[in-house]
């Protein structure tokens, strides 16, 4: 197998350049590549286009990149929970492209899978379909959506091996697998990095072929946005 291990986040993101288009896995703050985001903040790379379902909160996740004004454009489905984001958007400093969540996921998958475009019903008859081809199949209307072209994809997994095979846990999987397949360069950070051969080949979520660099992340905070608890007296 091919060894893709790098030392740390700093080494993994070293060639991410100003103006890059980057996919970042995660849903809300769940399953986000915390180490690489920190390294990007430190590197202070600018004018990024970030493809990510959400934009983090003010002081965590992609919010950290927004605070340092490193982001030129966000491509997301939902960007609430972030005051600095709102300020930059309203002042015109930040561009935002909002797209339906399923379309976002499928456009990522299409990018990795060599499908340049596909038809989806999501957004037909809404402003999402403006300027896009509309076409009827079996009496229902669909719009044409295209794949992305991302320079880098950065994903977070639970376990990985040195050949890049990845396993996710719980709902921290979300956008990570399809983004992993879609980067020209894909970087994976994992909580546990094991030697090749330790993972069951039947139960790997992301095959290593999609991964160019992998490292063991450190100090995961895994911040929770809405800690909801059952009434234990019940």
């Amino acid at each position: 197998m091919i060894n893709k291990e790098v030392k740390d986040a700093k080494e993994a993101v070293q060639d991410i350049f100003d103006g890059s288009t980057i996919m970042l896995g995660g849903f809300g703050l769940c399953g986000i590549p915390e180490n690489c985001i920190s390294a990007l903040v430190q590197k202070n790379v600018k004018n990024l286009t970030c493809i990510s379902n959400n934009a983090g909160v003010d002081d965590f996740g992609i919010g950290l990149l927004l605070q340092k004004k490193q982001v030129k454009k966000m491509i997301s489905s939902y960007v609430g929970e972030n005051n600095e984001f709102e300020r930059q958007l309203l002042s015109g400093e930040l561009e935002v492209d909002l797209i339906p969540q399923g379309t976002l996921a499928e456009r990522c998958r299409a990018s990795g899978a060599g499908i340049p475009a596909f038809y989806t019903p999501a957004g037909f008859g809404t402003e999402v379909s403006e300027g896009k081809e509309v076409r009827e199949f079996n009496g229902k209307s669909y719009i044409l959506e295209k794949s992305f072209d991302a320079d880098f994809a950065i994903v977070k997994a639970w376990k990985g091996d040195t050949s890049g095979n990845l396993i996710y846990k719980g709902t921290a999987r979300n956008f990570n697998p399809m983004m992993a397949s879609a980067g020209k360069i894909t970087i994976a950070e994992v909580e546990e990095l094991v030697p090749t051969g330790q993972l069951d080949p039947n139960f790997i979520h992301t095959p290593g072929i999609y991964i160019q660099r992998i490292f063991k992340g450190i100090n995961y905070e895994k911040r929770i946005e809405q800690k909801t608890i059952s009434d234990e007296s019940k």
Partner: protein
Amino acid sequence: MSLNKFQIAQRISKELKNGYYVNLGIGIPTLVANYIPKKINVVLQSENGLLGMGPFPKRSDVDPDLINAGKQTITTLNGSVLFDSAESFAMIRGGHINMTILGAMEVSENGDIANWKIPGKMVKGMGGAMDLVSSSDNIIVAMMHTNKKGESKLLKNCTLPLTGKKCIKKIFTDLAVIEVTKNGFYLVEKAPNVSIEEIINKTEGKIEISKKLKDIEI
């Protein structure tokens, strides 16, 4: 007496059938989970990648890697499945979800829905709503009949940017249960002691009254 949001959720719960896979939006729809009849099996989908959503965890079981689409910590159940976002929306777009229950700002008499954007206000995004409303034959709206200004939310045409066109089949409000037909709104149930006139007055779109109109039972 108009219904409160819990009673709306309770009424909607009667629409659930045994074996349904259901996606519940934020707000009143989420409350429906509390009223699922014990006799029937219904599986809740959370579009961030879980089928078989369980209740909130005990304090000791909170797992940051297990949240729902509202970013709340949750639990799995026996038989739950976890998957990625592409698979999740494959399920949704592919029509495998039997019922979707959503909140709305406006619904029009031809079944258009607006629930994601108010021009001039901060736009947070549509999340999965556009995929959900365009993908199933069974989209139900749970909302108040009027907005905070007392204006009808059941309109001839939506005034806000649309989430989806001609996709809503049934609306459950604090005043009524209304179907959306080729001829516009169709009043099939009303809240007890609410007059037909009040409902007509608070419905801007064209509305017909079912001959079998009855009171909502909860």
